[in-house]
């Protein structure tokens, strides 16, 4: 059964006899904090492992801006693909699934062999060559933002691994102790436990899957410290 915001708040309250539910901090305050923590940790996790919190977003061409707006729920874009109905300026259909290349505005002649867009102000625009898309759907593969809980009964984001709920718990416990005041010893102890949980979370993301087979690049069991799995 998935952990809810209520489960998490209860666990955090239970870390100290000084905590009183509804008095040390309101539930609404802690629910918002859980959302902030999830946002931050999932954003950080995307930089360690771009697949784990991955989402697939389909964006329609917006004629009013002349491009495809960046989805609000994506924290890091990893791939762009052609969706349904994508066509070039010459009315040639780009098959769904074709890789769309993002090129810089000042190098719009690069990668002329592949359909391309450039991004400006969170909108992907056609790069302007005959082979570039000008209509249809753009599929954005990237890491997504956390789903923030709104009530105490809401579950924690389903992509958040249950084994790493303690990371959130210790952050809540630190917050409660800091807010209560004069509990420096608890803050220090909880911070040490939070840091341990954080290290375990990052270690998990670095090697959460060992099945990926690649022609090049690293994705194996023991990536070297300087290498980020793709």
């Amino acid at each position, binding site marked *: 059964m998935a952990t809810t915001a209520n489960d998490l708040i209860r666990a955090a309250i239970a870390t100290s006899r000084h905590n009183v539910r509804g008095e040390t901090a309101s539930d609404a305050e802690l629910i918002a904090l859980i959302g902030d923590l999830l946002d931050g940790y999932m954003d950080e996790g995307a930089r360690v492992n771009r697949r784990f919190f991955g989402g697939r977003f389909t964006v329609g061409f917006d004629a009013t801006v002349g491009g495809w707006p960046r989805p609000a729920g994506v924290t890091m874009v990893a791939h762009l693909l052609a969706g349904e109905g994508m066509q070039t300026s010459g009315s040639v259909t780009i098959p769904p699934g074709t890789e769309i290349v993002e090129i810089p505005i000042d190098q719009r*002649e690069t*990668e*002329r*062999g*592949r359909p391309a867009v450039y991004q400006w102000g969170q909108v992907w625009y056609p790069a302007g060559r005959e082979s570039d898309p000008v209509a249809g759907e753009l599929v954005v593969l990237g890491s997504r933002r956390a789903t923030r809980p709104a009530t105490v009964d809401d579950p924690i984001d389903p992509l958040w691994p249950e084994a790493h709920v303690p990371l959130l718990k210790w952050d809540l416990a630190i917050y409660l102790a800091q807010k209560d005041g004069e509990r420096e010893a608890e803050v220090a102890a909880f911070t040490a436990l939070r840091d341990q949980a954080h290290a375990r979370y990052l270690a998990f993301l670095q090697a959460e899957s060992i099945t990926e087979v690649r*022609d*090049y*690049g*690293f994705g194996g069991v023991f990536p070297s410290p300087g*290498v980020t799995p793709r």
Partner: protein
Amino acid sequence: MTFEEVRRAALARLMEYGDRWPQGRSVAYRRIGVRQQQLYAMAARANPEYAGVCAIGTLVDGAANFAAMEPPVLRPEAITRVEIHDPGESDYEVGQRITIVTADDPDGLAPRAFLRHRVLVGVGNELAGVAQIKVWYPYIPEPARPDEDGSREVEIPDPYSELLVIDLARDYARKTLSLAPDVRAAIIRMQDEDEAPLLAEWIAHVRGYAPLETRFAR
């Protein structure tokens, strides 16, 4: 093996050294194309017959422009023979050799011609009336155009296509800023060491491709 497959193989060659390499593919395709031209240029000197082709050129006012020859002319690396293909109104015979001479030493057997900037021009009026000439030469492959998608097959046969892979891997190493200088030098040295014997085998393959019987040393 396609241009894209060469690129992927080059990246696979480098994967022990990191995962940050130049991303643009069209630049890699261009490098592959240029290296393939260099290898065919070497082959043309080792054995002009190996990549030998012929093209027919029509004479206009006693001159034939190679750029207008048919079939669409493969890029010539070195002309080995020019002959009469269609004598037209001249007295020459089909297959009669045209002597290529230089402007500062034009002596030779008729019909003679200068070959300057890819245009064949008869000496005096020695090609007057000739309708077509035939040019024999080893070609070099076309480089990659900027709009190619990497699906074109490379022309150099296996296993020598690995020479393209080695060269691109070395090129990547040269251009990757994040590599420590000693690591970069080690990668380049390793590619050089892999390339040398294979390059020698490529030239040996080109020379020994067919049992040539020639009266002149090559």
